[in-house]
């Protein structure tokens, strides 16, 4: 019998050794762990900036792309060192609660409302407020991400700001609980409308080989402004957080070199961001 417990113990030891080695190895290089959103990751901006950041500072940027809610949660749990999200309301709360510091605006892109090419609800060219009222009154199928992401939070804020409430259980209001592209696909299937960031739309249009069933119908309204900011995880709440690396990141992102790179970034040949760090 002892033999088997010995073997089991060996297996466990092996695992812990590997764990230890990995941790040690990781500690060698300067690695900055970031949490950002899926839509940010999908734009490809980070793939473009990360090597430039490494060249400038010698720090390797690693990021997990999750929903905004989860990103903030990771920040609270001290699992990441820095956050890059686009939900100003939630970010301010995050800082107010003491979890984040050095919140810095970096760039913005915009959201658009997309819908079927033939626009059955007739909202093309309208302002956001009007369009939303049409959706609510005419009970037009509208797909929401429903996943507590930045996009979702913005969408909820739009309904609220424009005085529309109580639509959560309405049959025409569909909450997919999934990422942006999945939600767009649902909208395409059902002939519905949805709110998306421009970056995802550009990609979507590209995969549809320039002839998508859903097109942009409402844009340019300043309610559709999508501001990106970075926040360092508070060293007070998270002693193990690599605060100085986070600071270097934020500082670099706001620097003229990075800001230019952000502005020059093109997604599938189309510009996406406007850099606005002060």
């Amino acid at each position, binding site marked *: 019998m002892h033999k*088997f417990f010995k073997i089991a113990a060996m297996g466990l030891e092996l695992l812990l050794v590997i764990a230890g080695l990995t941790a040690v190895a990781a500690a060698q290089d300067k690695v900055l762990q970031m949490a950002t959103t899926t839509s940010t990751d999908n734009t490809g901006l980070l*793939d473009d900036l990360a090597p430039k950041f490494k060249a400038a500072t010698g720090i390797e940027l690693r990021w997990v792309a999750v929903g905004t809610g989860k990103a903030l949660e990771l920040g609270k749990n001290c699992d990441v060192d820095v956050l890059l999200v686009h939900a100003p309301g939630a970010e301010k709360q995050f800082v107010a609660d003491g979890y984040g510091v050095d919140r810095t605006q970096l760039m913005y892109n915009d959201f658009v409302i997309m819908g079927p090419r033939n626009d059955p609800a007739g909202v093309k060219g309208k302002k956001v407020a009007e369009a939303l009222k049409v959706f609510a009154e005419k009970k037009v199928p509208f797909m929401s991400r429903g996943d507590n992401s930045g996009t979702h939070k913005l969408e909820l804020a739009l309904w609220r700001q424009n005085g529309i409430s109580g639509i959560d259980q309405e049959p025409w209001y569909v909450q997919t609980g999934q990422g942006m592209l999945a939600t767009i696909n649902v909208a395409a299937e059902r002939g519905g409308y949805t709110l998306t960031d421009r970056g995802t739309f550009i990609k979507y249009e590209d995969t549809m080989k320039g002839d998508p069933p859903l097109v942009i119908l409402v844009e340019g309204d300043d309610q559709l402004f999508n501001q990106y900011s970075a926040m360092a995880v508070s060293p007070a709440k998270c002693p193990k957080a690599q605060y100085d690396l986070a600071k270097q990141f934020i500082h670099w992102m706001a620097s003229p070199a990075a800001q230019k790179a952000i502005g020059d970034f093109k997604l599938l040949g189309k510009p996406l961001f406007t850099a606005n760090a002060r």
Partner: protein
Amino acid sequence: MQYLIDGLITAIQLLLSGHPETYSAVAATLTVSSYAMLASLSIGIPLGFLLGYYDFPGKRAIRTLVDTCLAFPTVLIGLLVYAFISRRGPLGEFGLLFSLTAIAIGQTILALPVVIALTATAMESLDRQLRLTLLTLGARGRQLLWTSIWEARYGVLAATMNAYGRVLTEVGISMMVGGNIKWHTRTITTAIALETGKGEFAMGIALGLVLMSIAFLVNLALAVLRKRA
């Protein structure tokens, strides 16, 4: 339908061209699944053997518990592992989150009930005549045990193949505690999730086919082993 054909073509292209991201995901998948299998087999087979071979009070209860764990959803395992290795959690200081090790740990937890339950079943399925035969030929103690385990080897092999299938194809754990970080913790399954999330279905299918090829090769190897044993 078009997705499938595109997927097949893409899969071949990815593999033949040595596409770095794909191969990185393949390496990550092979690494975590191998570690997880090694750990779960070395811990699970002895435990499964003890559970199946001996009689003791509470045996039924433990067996039921193990069988229940077979239904553990991977996302839940991922969540639990996260709770432990998050900086906030009890094992936070090891900095395991978002590493391949974390995924391996989670996958070990996934595979263990499978290995234990199926090994126990294999031991219980041993012919009653085996024990008498071994005793009458003079085997005792450790000889008796080792020969009995060897006699159950086909059942244990089945346990291994089953567990490996589970581990290779799971995505809940890899996503949750691995973080799907490109070049580091992006496995084939998390890459598939990512691609399909982006709407790149053909790519998703391509990666899926790559995964199936790996599974096929491993099972082929195990089948050859089975023949020889």
